[in-house]
């Protein structure tokens, strides 16, 4: 599971984060280190789709992002689909 967009959405699910905090959090919970180019490429696409949005910050250089309602719905859908795949795969592995 290394879709950068999904990892970012999952990371933002527990609170707003800026780029560096996202990078650290994703490495901690998924064991995936997103390069800066990949991370900001994904942030750009999520922002354009309206799944995340920039929020006001006291630090004008570090820009935190928050999950939008649309982004939350998309994340839930993706996680449900993944859950189904995990369950099916696990069950089939047991029967082999």
């Amino acid at each position, binding site marked *: 599971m290394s879709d950068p967009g999904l990892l970012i959405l999952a990371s933002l699910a527990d609170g707003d984060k*800026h780029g560096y905090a996202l990078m650290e959090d994703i490495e901690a919970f998924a064991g995936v280190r997103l390069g800066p180019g990949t991370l900001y490429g994904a942030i750009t696409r999520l922002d354009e789709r309206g799944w995340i949005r920039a929020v006001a910050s006291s630090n004008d250089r570090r820009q935190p992002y928050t999950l939008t309602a649309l982004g939350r719905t998309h994340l839930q859908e993706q996680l449900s689909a993944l859950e189904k795949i995990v369950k099916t795969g696990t069950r089939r592995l047991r029967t082999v």
Partner: protein
Amino acid sequence: MKWVALQLLRLYPKAWRERYGTEFEALLQDARLRPADLVDILKEVFQMRLRDVGVFALLSGIGLASGLSFAAAIPDVWVARSTVTLDGKDGAIYNAVSKALSRRTLLEIIERNNLYAVERKNQSIESVVEQMQRSIIVGTSEAGTIPLEYRYRDKQLGSQAMHEIVQIPDPDRSPRIVYIQDEKPWLRTAMPFVGLGFGVLCWILFRKKRSAI
């Protein structure tokens, strides 16, 4: 490493740098960068540039293809020109031309030369004859000569029809038919360029909209 990464930031599209440049720079300053990160940045720059080129190619391609389709859909029109010459007064000449362009005469010419084959299948014969009448332009009489023009999509058939029309007042005369292609070719040439221009315009608007996000 950081210095190189910060230089690579310049390779991003201007609109992207204006929107995300400052925060991306902050990330590059904060993160512990590895050599692989430089490749990662270059890869993203390349993809972003490629997307721009892709959108440009797609929109201009659609515009060009539409223009070419419109150009191909413009029918060929040929103009056959000739004159009717009769000794006598202008009134007599006009009468002779009127007879040549009468419904009955044109109907005979249509049937003999199989003109307007498609239209005859879909429309009444009266409207086909009217269409032919509208395609014939009678000029002003000058020294016993009246110029005639007939527009038709087939050069040979149009020319033959005109030949028969001008022979009706004077069957012994061997008329000279001049045919030229209608002025439409410039439109056919212009259409692809108009389509391409429209595609490029859409791309410019698309870029403006994207940079406004």
